[in-house]
Protein backbone atom coordinates (compact mmCIF):
# COMPACT_ATOMS: atom_id res chain seq x y z
CA UNK A 1 0.00 0.00 0.00
CA UNK A 2 1.15 3.52 -0.70
CA UNK A 3 1.96 5.85 2.15
CA UNK A 4 -0.98 6.80 4.40
CA UNK A 5 -1.88 10.42 3.66
CA UNK A 6 -3.08 12.57 6.54
CA UNK A 7 -6.62 13.96 6.19
CA UNK A 8 -9.15 15.92 8.25
CA UNK A 9 -9.95 12.90 10.42
CA UNK A 10 -6.29 13.15 11.55
CA UNK A 11 -6.29 16.93 11.94
CA UNK A 12 -4.93 17.82 8.48
CA UNK A 13 -6.80 20.24 6.17
CA UNK A 14 -7.30 17.66 3.45
CA UNK A 15 -9.77 15.12 2.08
CA UNK A 16 -8.23 11.79 1.14
CA UNK A 17 -9.69 8.79 -0.69
CA UNK A 18 -8.39 5.41 -1.80
CA UNK A 19 -8.23 4.17 -5.36
CA UNK A 20 -8.02 0.50 -6.39
CA UNK A 21 -5.74 -0.26 -9.34
CA UNK A 22 -7.27 -3.72 -9.73
CA UNK A 23 -10.94 -2.81 -10.23
CA UNK A 24 -11.01 0.99 -10.42
CA UNK A 25 -13.18 1.35 -7.28
CA UNK A 26 -12.76 4.52 -5.24
CA UNK A 27 -13.61 4.48 -1.56
CA UNK A 28 -13.76 7.15 1.11
CA UNK A 29 -13.75 5.15 4.36
CA UNK A 30 -10.11 4.07 4.74
CA UNK A 31 -9.44 0.32 4.81
CA UNK A 32 -6.48 -1.95 4.13
CA UNK A 33 -8.25 -3.45 1.11
CA UNK A 34 -10.74 -2.60 -1.64
CA UNK A 35 -14.30 -3.12 -0.40
CA UNK A 36 -15.38 -3.90 -3.95
CA UNK A 37 -12.86 -6.57 -5.04
CA UNK A 38 -10.73 -7.26 -1.96
CA UNK A 39 -7.45 -6.24 -3.56
CA UNK A 40 -4.78 -4.74 -1.31
CA UNK A 41 -2.24 -2.09 -2.25
CA UNK A 42 -4.71 0.77 -2.67
CA UNK A 43 -3.36 4.16 -3.70
CA UNK A 44 -4.19 7.05 -1.39
CA UNK A 45 -4.98 10.36 -3.07
CA UNK A 46 -5.86 13.86 -1.97
CA UNK A 47 -9.21 14.94 -3.34
CA UNK A 48 -9.67 18.30 -5.07
CA UNK A 49 -12.40 19.27 -2.61
CA UNK A 50 -14.82 19.87 -5.46
CA UNK A 51 -18.14 18.18 -5.87
CA UNK A 52 -21.92 18.34 -6.04
CA UNK A 53 -24.40 18.45 -3.14
CA UNK A 54 -26.36 15.17 -2.85
CA UNK A 55 -28.33 15.88 0.35
CA UNK A 56 -28.55 18.42 3.19
CA UNK A 57 -29.91 18.61 6.73
CA UNK A 58 -29.72 21.65 8.98
CA UNK A 59 -29.09 20.44 12.54
CA UNK A 60 -30.96 22.66 15.00
CA UNK A 61 -30.92 20.28 17.99
CA UNK A 62 -27.52 18.93 19.01
CA UNK A 63 -26.79 16.48 21.82
CA UNK A 64 -23.43 17.47 23.34
CA UNK A 65 -22.25 20.73 24.93
CA UNK A 66 -19.50 21.03 22.28
CA UNK A 67 -21.85 20.66 19.32
CA UNK A 68 -24.69 22.68 20.90
CA UNK A 69 -22.41 25.75 20.75
CA UNK A 70 -22.51 25.51 16.93
CA UNK A 71 -26.24 25.12 16.16
CA UNK A 72 -27.62 25.51 13.63
CA UNK A 73 -25.11 23.77 11.38
CA UNK A 74 -25.68 22.20 8.01
CA UNK A 75 -24.73 18.54 7.51
CA UNK A 76 -24.31 17.68 3.82
CA UNK A 77 -23.54 14.67 1.67
CA UNK A 78 -21.35 15.65 -1.28
CA UNK A 79 -20.53 13.61 -4.36
CA UNK A 80 -16.87 14.41 -4.86
CA UNK A 81 -15.67 14.89 -8.43
CA UNK A 82 -13.28 11.97 -7.90
CA UNK A 83 -16.23 9.57 -7.61
CA UNK A 84 -16.88 9.00 -3.90
CA UNK A 85 -19.52 10.34 -1.51
CA UNK A 86 -18.65 12.07 1.77
CA UNK A 87 -20.37 13.69 4.74
CA UNK A 88 -19.28 17.20 5.71
CA UNK A 89 -20.54 20.56 6.87
CA UNK A 90 -21.90 23.06 4.37
CA UNK A 91 -22.95 26.69 4.22
CA UNK A 92 -26.62 27.06 5.12
CA UNK A 93 -27.59 28.33 1.65
CA UNK A 94 -26.64 25.09 -0.13
CA UNK A 95 -29.22 23.20 -2.17
CA UNK A 96 -29.15 19.74 -3.71
CA UNK A 97 -27.32 19.83 -7.04
CA UNK A 98 -25.16 22.86 -6.17
CA UNK A 99 -21.54 22.73 -7.28
CA UNK A 100 -19.37 23.16 -4.17
CA UNK A 101 -15.78 23.59 -2.98
CA UNK A 102 -14.40 22.51 0.40
CA UNK A 103 -12.66 24.62 3.00
CA UNK A 104 -11.84 23.58 6.57
CA UNK A 105 -13.40 25.09 9.68
CA UNK A 106 -13.08 24.45 13.42
CA UNK A 107 -15.98 22.46 14.91
CA UNK A 108 -16.26 21.02 18.42
CA UNK A 109 -12.51 21.11 18.94
CA UNK A 110 -11.46 19.74 15.56
CA UNK A 111 -11.02 20.72 11.94
CA UNK A 112 -13.85 19.59 9.63
CA UNK A 113 -14.52 20.00 5.91
CA UNK A 114 -17.16 22.60 5.11
CA UNK A 115 -18.49 23.14 1.60
CA UNK A 116 -19.47 26.46 0.01
CA UNK A 117 -20.99 27.24 -3.36
CA UNK A 118 -18.27 27.17 -6.00
CA UNK A 119 -17.65 30.47 -7.73
CA UNK A 120 -16.09 29.38 -11.05
CA UNK A 121 -17.57 27.39 -13.91
CA UNK A 122 -15.96 23.94 -14.12
CA UNK A 123 -14.61 22.15 -17.21
CA UNK A 124 -18.09 21.16 -18.27
CA UNK A 125 -19.29 24.75 -18.10
CA UNK A 126 -21.27 24.22 -14.92
CA UNK A 127 -20.97 27.16 -12.54
CA UNK A 128 -19.03 26.40 -9.42
Amino acid at each position, binding site marked *: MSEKLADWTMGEAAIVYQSCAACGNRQYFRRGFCASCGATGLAERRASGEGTVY*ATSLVCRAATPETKAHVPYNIVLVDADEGFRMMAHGDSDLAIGDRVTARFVPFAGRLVPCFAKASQPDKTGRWR
Partner: protein
Amino acid sequence: MSYITGVGLTPFGKHEGSSSLDLMSQAAALALADAGLARSEIDGILCGYSTVSPHIMLATVFAEHFGIQPSYAHAVQVGGATGLAMTMLAHTLVDAGVARHVLVVAGENRLTGQSRDASIQALAQVGHPDYEVPLGPTIPAYYGLVASRYMHEYGLTQEDLAEFAVLMRRHALMHPGAQFHEPITVADVMASKPVALPLKLLDCCPVSDGGAAFIISREPTTDARVRIRGCAQAHTHQHVTAAPALDKLGAEIAVAKVKAATGIAISDVRYAAVYDSFTITLAMLLEDLGLAGRGEAAARVRAGHFSRDGQMPLNTHGGLLSYGHCGVGGAMAHLVETHLQMTGRAGERQVRDASLALLHGDGGVLSSHVSMVLERAR
Protein backbone atom coordinates in the same frame (compact mmCIF):
# COMPACT_ATOMS: atom_id res chain seq x y z
CA MET B 1 -44.00 -23.71 10.34
CA SER B 2 -44.36 -21.45 13.36
CA TYR B 3 -47.07 -19.53 15.19
CA ILE B 4 -47.07 -16.38 17.26
CA THR B 5 -48.83 -17.82 20.28
CA GLY B 6 -48.69 -14.92 22.69
CA VAL B 7 -48.01 -11.19 22.78
CA GLY B 8 -47.35 -8.70 25.57
CA LEU B 9 -46.99 -4.94 25.51
CA THR B 10 -46.68 -2.38 28.30
CA PRO B 11 -47.93 1.17 27.94
CA PHE B 12 -45.18 3.45 26.56
CA GLY B 13 -44.18 6.75 28.12
CA LYS B 14 -42.76 7.22 31.60
CA HIS B 15 -42.30 4.22 33.89
CA GLU B 16 -40.58 6.02 36.74
CA GLY B 17 -38.46 3.62 38.79
CA SER B 18 -38.65 0.70 36.34
CA SER B 19 -35.41 -0.78 35.02
CA SER B 20 -34.95 -2.32 31.58
CA LEU B 21 -35.21 -5.77 33.20
CA ASP B 22 -38.44 -4.75 34.94
CA LEU B 23 -40.01 -3.67 31.65
CA MET B 24 -38.79 -6.81 29.86
CA SER B 25 -40.23 -8.94 32.68
CA GLN B 26 -43.60 -7.19 32.57
CA ALA B 27 -43.91 -7.71 28.83
CA ALA B 28 -42.70 -11.32 29.02
CA ALA B 29 -45.22 -12.16 31.75
CA LEU B 30 -48.01 -10.70 29.62
CA ALA B 31 -46.91 -12.72 26.58
CA LEU B 32 -46.72 -15.95 28.61
CA ALA B 33 -50.20 -15.40 30.02
CA ASP B 34 -51.49 -14.64 26.53
CA ALA B 35 -50.05 -17.92 25.19
CA GLY B 36 -51.25 -19.85 28.24
CA LEU B 37 -47.72 -21.11 28.87
CA ALA B 38 -45.69 -21.52 32.06
CA ARG B 39 -42.16 -20.15 32.39
CA SER B 40 -40.85 -23.74 32.43
CA GLU B 41 -42.23 -24.36 28.95
CA ILE B 42 -40.02 -21.65 27.39
CA ASP B 43 -36.90 -23.29 25.98
CA GLY B 44 -35.52 -20.43 23.89
CA ILE B 45 -34.94 -16.74 24.61
CA LEU B 46 -34.02 -14.00 22.19
CA CYS B 47 -33.72 -10.48 23.49
CA GLY B 48 -32.78 -7.07 22.20
CA TYR B 49 -30.39 -4.60 23.81
CA SER B 50 -30.68 -1.74 26.27
CA THR B 51 -28.75 1.48 25.70
CA VAL B 52 -29.47 2.40 29.34
CA SER B 53 -28.08 -0.85 30.78
CA PRO B 54 -25.70 -2.31 28.19
CA HIS B 55 -24.56 -5.87 28.86
CA ILE B 56 -22.58 -8.36 26.80
CA MET B 57 -24.96 -11.20 27.82
CA LEU B 58 -28.37 -9.62 28.22
CA ALA B 59 -30.31 -12.78 27.28
CA THR B 60 -28.90 -14.81 30.16
CA VAL B 61 -29.10 -11.84 32.52
CA PHE B 62 -32.80 -11.71 31.68
CA ALA B 63 -33.27 -15.49 31.80
CA GLU B 64 -31.80 -15.65 35.32
CA HIS B 65 -33.81 -12.61 36.44
CA PHE B 66 -37.07 -13.96 35.01
CA GLY B 67 -36.44 -17.49 36.23
CA ILE B 68 -35.94 -19.48 33.04
CA GLN B 69 -33.17 -21.92 32.12
CA PRO B 70 -33.49 -22.09 28.33
CA SER B 71 -31.62 -24.43 26.02
CA TYR B 72 -31.06 -21.59 23.54
CA ALA B 73 -30.47 -17.90 24.39
CA HIS B 74 -28.70 -14.81 23.10
CA ALA B 75 -29.24 -11.15 22.26
CA VAL B 76 -29.72 -9.76 18.76
CA GLN B 77 -28.70 -6.30 17.56
CA VAL B 78 -29.93 -4.83 14.30
CA GLY B 79 -31.17 -1.47 15.55
CA GLY B 80 -34.84 -0.83 14.80
CA ALA B 81 -35.04 -4.06 12.78
CA THR B 82 -34.14 -6.15 15.84
CA GLY B 83 -37.70 -7.11 16.82
CA LEU B 84 -38.57 -8.58 13.44
CA ALA B 85 -35.08 -10.07 13.03
CA MET B 86 -35.54 -11.90 16.35
CA THR B 87 -38.96 -13.08 15.21
CA MET B 88 -37.48 -14.37 11.96
CA LEU B 89 -34.78 -16.23 13.90
CA ALA B 90 -37.33 -17.64 16.37
CA HIS B 91 -39.37 -18.85 13.40
CA THR B 92 -36.28 -20.54 11.96
CA LEU B 93 -35.32 -22.12 15.31
CA VAL B 94 -38.81 -23.44 15.92
CA ASP B 95 -39.14 -24.65 12.35
CA ALA B 96 -35.78 -26.48 12.63
CA GLY B 97 -36.80 -28.15 15.88
CA VAL B 98 -34.14 -26.39 17.97
CA ALA B 99 -36.79 -25.01 20.35
CA ARG B 100 -40.51 -25.44 20.98
CA HIS B 101 -41.40 -22.07 22.47
CA VAL B 102 -39.11 -19.09 21.93
CA LEU B 103 -39.64 -15.95 24.01
CA VAL B 104 -38.72 -12.79 22.09
CA VAL B 105 -38.42 -9.87 24.48
CA ALA B 106 -37.16 -6.30 24.73
CA GLY B 107 -37.70 -3.39 27.06
CA GLU B 108 -35.92 -0.24 28.06
CA ASN B 109 -36.35 2.67 30.47
CA ARG B 110 -34.89 4.92 27.81
CA LEU B 111 -36.91 7.99 28.82
CA THR B 112 -36.48 8.05 32.60
CA GLY B 113 -33.26 6.02 32.83
CA GLN B 114 -31.06 8.55 31.06
CA SER B 115 -31.19 12.12 29.77
CA ARG B 116 -32.66 12.85 26.37
CA ASP B 117 -29.24 14.15 25.32
CA ALA B 118 -27.68 10.85 26.38
CA SER B 119 -30.22 8.94 24.24
CA ILE B 120 -29.61 11.15 21.22
CA GLN B 121 -25.86 10.88 21.72
CA ALA B 122 -25.92 7.08 22.15
CA LEU B 123 -27.99 6.60 19.01
CA ALA B 124 -25.85 8.97 16.90
CA GLN B 125 -23.03 6.47 17.36
CA VAL B 126 -24.51 4.32 14.59
CA GLY B 127 -22.66 6.85 12.40
CA HIS B 128 -19.11 6.23 11.23
CA PRO B 129 -16.77 6.97 14.17
CA ASP B 130 -14.11 8.68 12.03
CA TYR B 131 -15.93 10.08 9.01
CA GLU B 132 -19.41 11.00 10.34
CA VAL B 133 -19.71 11.25 14.13
CA PRO B 134 -17.04 14.04 14.47
CA LEU B 135 -19.27 16.24 12.28
CA GLY B 136 -21.96 16.29 14.98
CA PRO B 137 -24.83 14.58 13.18
CA THR B 138 -27.76 13.08 15.10
CA ILE B 139 -30.12 10.29 14.07
CA PRO B 140 -32.64 12.91 12.90
CA ALA B 141 -29.84 14.45 10.79
CA TYR B 142 -29.06 11.12 9.10
CA TYR B 143 -32.74 10.77 8.26
CA GLY B 144 -32.96 14.50 7.47
CA LEU B 145 -30.35 13.93 4.76
CA VAL B 146 -32.35 11.06 3.32
CA ALA B 147 -35.53 13.15 3.55
CA SER B 148 -34.01 16.06 1.64
CA ARG B 149 -32.95 13.75 -1.17
CA TYR B 150 -36.22 11.83 -1.28
CA MET B 151 -38.21 15.08 -1.37
CA HIS B 152 -35.92 16.33 -4.16
CA GLU B 153 -36.30 13.20 -6.29
CA TYR B 154 -39.99 12.49 -5.77
CA GLY B 155 -41.47 15.93 -5.11
CA LEU B 156 -42.63 15.37 -1.53
CA THR B 157 -43.22 18.45 0.63
CA GLN B 158 -42.85 18.97 4.38
CA GLU B 159 -46.66 19.14 4.54
CA ASP B 160 -46.79 15.69 2.90
CA LEU B 161 -44.52 14.30 5.61
CA ALA B 162 -46.62 15.94 8.32
CA GLU B 163 -49.62 13.85 7.21
CA PHE B 164 -47.92 10.71 8.56
CA ALA B 165 -47.41 12.26 12.01
CA VAL B 166 -51.07 13.33 12.08
CA LEU B 167 -52.23 9.84 11.05
CA MET B 168 -50.13 8.08 13.69
CA ARG B 169 -51.39 10.49 16.35
CA ARG B 170 -54.99 9.90 15.30
CA HIS B 171 -54.44 6.17 15.72
CA ALA B 172 -52.73 6.62 19.10
CA LEU B 173 -55.77 8.50 20.43
CA MET B 174 -57.61 5.17 20.40
CA HIS B 175 -54.95 3.25 22.35
CA PRO B 176 -54.81 3.81 26.11
CA GLY B 177 -51.19 2.62 26.23
CA ALA B 178 -49.90 5.24 23.79
CA GLN B 179 -47.49 7.94 24.96
CA PHE B 180 -49.43 10.78 23.32
CA HIS B 181 -53.14 11.49 23.56
CA GLU B 182 -53.47 15.03 22.24
CA PRO B 183 -54.63 15.35 18.64
CA ILE B 184 -52.31 17.21 16.25
CA THR B 185 -52.76 18.85 12.85
CA VAL B 186 -50.49 19.36 9.85
CA ALA B 187 -50.11 22.98 11.02
CA ASP B 188 -48.93 21.76 14.44
CA VAL B 189 -46.28 19.58 12.79
CA MET B 190 -45.16 22.43 10.54
CA ALA B 191 -44.93 24.79 13.55
CA SER B 192 -43.05 22.33 15.77
CA LYS B 193 -39.43 23.07 16.65
CA PRO B 194 -36.85 22.35 13.94
CA VAL B 195 -34.70 19.34 14.88
CA ALA B 196 -32.74 18.44 11.73
CA LEU B 197 -34.46 20.10 8.78
CA PRO B 198 -36.51 19.16 6.90
CA LEU B 199 -37.49 17.15 10.03
CA LYS B 200 -39.18 18.95 12.90
CA LEU B 201 -40.01 17.71 16.38
CA LEU B 202 -43.35 16.16 15.41
CA ASP B 203 -41.72 14.38 12.44
CA CYS B 204 -39.63 12.46 14.99
CA CYS B 205 -40.64 9.60 17.27
CA PRO B 206 -40.27 10.29 20.99
CA VAL B 207 -37.97 8.60 23.50
CA SER B 208 -40.02 6.25 25.71
CA ASP B 209 -39.92 3.70 28.48
CA GLY B 210 -41.66 0.45 27.63
CA GLY B 211 -41.43 -3.23 26.90
CA ALA B 212 -42.79 -5.77 24.42
CA ALA B 213 -42.62 -9.54 24.07
CA PHE B 214 -43.98 -12.39 22.01
CA ILE B 215 -43.76 -16.15 21.96
CA ILE B 216 -43.08 -18.10 18.80
CA SER B 217 -44.14 -21.74 18.97
CA ARG B 218 -44.23 -24.78 16.76
CA GLU B 219 -47.96 -25.29 17.33
CA PRO B 220 -50.78 -22.98 18.42
CA THR B 221 -51.35 -23.01 22.18
CA THR B 222 -54.72 -21.22 22.18
CA ASP B 223 -57.43 -20.26 19.68
CA ALA B 224 -55.18 -17.47 18.40
CA ARG B 225 -53.73 -19.01 15.27
CA VAL B 226 -51.37 -16.48 13.73
CA ARG B 227 -48.84 -18.16 11.50
CA ILE B 228 -45.56 -16.74 10.21
CA ARG B 229 -45.96 -17.27 6.49
CA GLY B 230 -42.51 -16.00 5.51
CA CYS B 231 -39.77 -13.48 6.18
CA ALA B 232 -36.69 -12.05 4.50
CA GLN B 233 -33.89 -9.62 5.26
CA ALA B 234 -31.66 -7.25 3.29
CA HIS B 235 -28.62 -5.31 4.51
CA THR B 236 -27.11 -2.93 1.98
CA HIS B 237 -24.88 -0.70 4.13
CA GLN B 238 -24.45 0.67 7.64
CA HIS B 239 -23.64 4.37 7.21
CA VAL B 240 -25.76 6.88 5.30
CA THR B 241 -22.61 8.01 3.47
CA ALA B 242 -22.38 4.49 2.00
CA ALA B 243 -26.10 4.05 1.27
CA PRO B 244 -27.12 3.01 -2.24
CA ALA B 245 -29.41 5.09 -4.46
CA LEU B 246 -32.96 5.63 -3.19
CA ASP B 247 -34.41 3.06 -5.58
CA LYS B 248 -31.95 0.37 -4.47
CA LEU B 249 -32.59 0.31 -0.71
CA GLY B 250 -33.08 -2.84 1.35
CA ALA B 251 -36.85 -2.58 1.84
CA GLU B 252 -37.46 -3.22 -1.84
CA ILE B 253 -35.04 -6.15 -1.80
CA ALA B 254 -36.49 -7.71 1.36
CA VAL B 255 -40.10 -7.40 0.29
CA ALA B 256 -39.31 -8.85 -3.13
CA LYS B 257 -37.74 -11.86 -1.41
CA VAL B 258 -40.69 -12.34 0.93
CA LYS B 259 -43.15 -12.08 -1.96
CA ALA B 260 -41.17 -14.69 -3.91
CA ALA B 261 -40.93 -16.98 -0.87
CA THR B 262 -44.62 -16.82 0.05
CA GLY B 263 -46.31 -16.23 -3.29
CA ILE B 264 -48.12 -13.30 -1.65
CA ALA B 265 -48.81 -10.17 -3.68
CA ILE B 266 -49.23 -6.71 -2.15
CA SER B 267 -52.87 -6.83 -3.30
CA ASP B 268 -53.39 -9.80 -0.93
CA VAL B 269 -52.25 -7.80 2.13
CA ARG B 270 -55.04 -6.58 4.44
CA TYR B 271 -53.07 -4.89 7.25
CA ALA B 272 -49.70 -3.14 7.31
CA ALA B 273 -47.24 -2.63 10.18
CA VAL B 274 -44.37 -0.46 9.01
CA TYR B 275 -41.43 1.06 10.88
CA ASP B 276 -41.93 4.79 11.43
CA SER B 277 -39.02 6.28 13.37
CA PHE B 278 -39.57 9.49 11.39
CA THR B 279 -42.31 10.61 9.02
CA ILE B 280 -39.85 10.23 6.13
CA THR B 281 -39.10 6.65 7.18
CA LEU B 282 -42.76 5.72 6.95
CA ALA B 283 -43.31 7.57 3.66
CA MET B 284 -40.29 5.94 2.04
CA LEU B 285 -40.92 2.44 3.35
CA LEU B 286 -44.58 2.47 2.25
CA GLU B 287 -43.42 3.39 -1.24
CA ASP B 288 -40.45 0.98 -1.23
CA LEU B 289 -42.73 -1.87 -0.13
CA GLY B 290 -45.23 -1.11 -2.88
CA LEU B 291 -48.02 -0.08 -0.49
CA ALA B 292 -48.12 3.23 -2.42
CA GLY B 293 -46.62 4.45 -5.69
CA ARG B 294 -43.52 6.67 -5.65
CA GLY B 295 -44.41 10.04 -4.18
CA GLU B 296 -48.00 8.94 -3.63
CA ALA B 297 -48.07 7.75 -0.01
CA ALA B 298 -49.08 11.14 1.43
CA ALA B 299 -52.02 11.42 -0.96
CA ARG B 300 -53.13 7.97 0.19
CA VAL B 301 -52.95 9.10 3.82
CA ARG B 302 -55.14 12.12 2.98
CA ALA B 303 -57.61 9.84 1.20
CA GLY B 304 -57.94 7.65 4.31
CA HIS B 305 -56.31 4.63 2.67
CA PHE B 306 -54.18 3.84 5.76
CA SER B 307 -56.84 4.64 8.38
CA ARG B 308 -58.61 2.05 10.52
CA ASP B 309 -61.52 1.88 8.08
CA GLY B 310 -59.38 2.36 4.98
CA GLN B 311 -58.24 -0.19 2.45
CA MET B 312 -54.87 -0.78 4.14
CA PRO B 313 -55.02 -0.03 7.88
CA LEU B 314 -51.53 0.89 9.09
CA ASN B 315 -49.99 0.92 12.59
CA THR B 316 -53.38 1.26 14.28
CA HIS B 317 -51.72 1.58 17.70
CA GLY B 318 -50.03 4.84 16.68
CA GLY B 319 -46.60 3.56 15.66
CA LEU B 320 -43.28 4.76 16.96
CA LEU B 321 -44.36 8.32 16.19
CA SER B 322 -47.20 8.34 18.71
CA TYR B 323 -47.41 5.06 20.64
CA GLY B 324 -43.73 5.65 21.38
CA HIS B 325 -40.24 4.29 20.89
CA CYS B 326 -38.40 2.50 23.70
CA GLY B 327 -35.68 1.01 21.49
CA VAL B 328 -36.07 -2.59 20.36
CA GLY B 329 -39.49 -2.88 22.02
CA GLY B 330 -40.73 0.10 20.01
CA ALA B 331 -41.07 -1.69 16.72
CA MET B 332 -42.21 -4.86 18.49
CA ALA B 333 -45.37 -2.96 19.42
CA HIS B 334 -46.23 -3.01 15.71
CA LEU B 335 -46.30 -6.83 15.79
CA VAL B 336 -48.28 -6.94 19.04
CA GLU B 337 -50.92 -4.65 17.49
CA THR B 338 -50.94 -6.76 14.31
CA HIS B 339 -51.55 -9.87 16.43
CA LEU B 340 -54.42 -8.19 18.28
CA GLN B 341 -55.94 -7.14 14.95
CA MET B 342 -55.53 -10.61 13.44
CA THR B 343 -57.17 -12.26 16.44
CA GLY B 344 -60.05 -9.77 16.68
CA ARG B 345 -58.89 -8.33 20.01
CA ALA B 346 -58.17 -4.70 19.06
CA GLY B 347 -61.34 -3.30 20.61
CA GLU B 348 -62.41 0.03 19.15
CA ARG B 349 -59.33 -0.03 16.92
CA GLN B 350 -60.41 -3.31 15.31
CA VAL B 351 -60.24 -3.30 11.53
CA ARG B 352 -62.65 -5.23 9.31
CA ASP B 353 -60.19 -7.78 7.98
CA ALA B 354 -56.63 -8.39 9.16
CA SER B 355 -56.34 -11.94 7.85
CA LEU B 356 -53.03 -11.26 6.10
CA ALA B 357 -50.47 -8.74 7.33
CA LEU B 358 -47.22 -7.32 5.99
CA LEU B 359 -44.71 -6.12 8.59
CA HIS B 360 -41.50 -4.27 7.94
CA GLY B 361 -38.67 -3.15 10.19
CA ASP B 362 -35.69 -0.92 9.46
CA GLY B 363 -32.50 -0.49 11.47
CA GLY B 364 -29.66 2.03 11.26
CA VAL B 365 -30.21 4.55 8.49
CA LEU B 366 -32.35 2.39 6.20
CA SER B 367 -29.45 -0.06 6.60
CA SER B 368 -31.01 -3.29 7.85
CA HIS B 369 -34.41 -4.49 6.71
CA VAL B 370 -36.75 -7.32 7.67
CA SER B 371 -40.03 -7.98 5.86
CA MET B 372 -42.52 -10.48 7.24
CA VAL B 373 -45.91 -11.86 6.27
CA LEU B 374 -48.29 -13.14 8.94
CA GLU B 375 -51.50 -14.99 8.15
CA ARG B 376 -54.45 -16.11 10.20
CA ALA B 377 -54.58 -19.88 10.01
CA ARG B 378 -57.80 -21.85 10.29
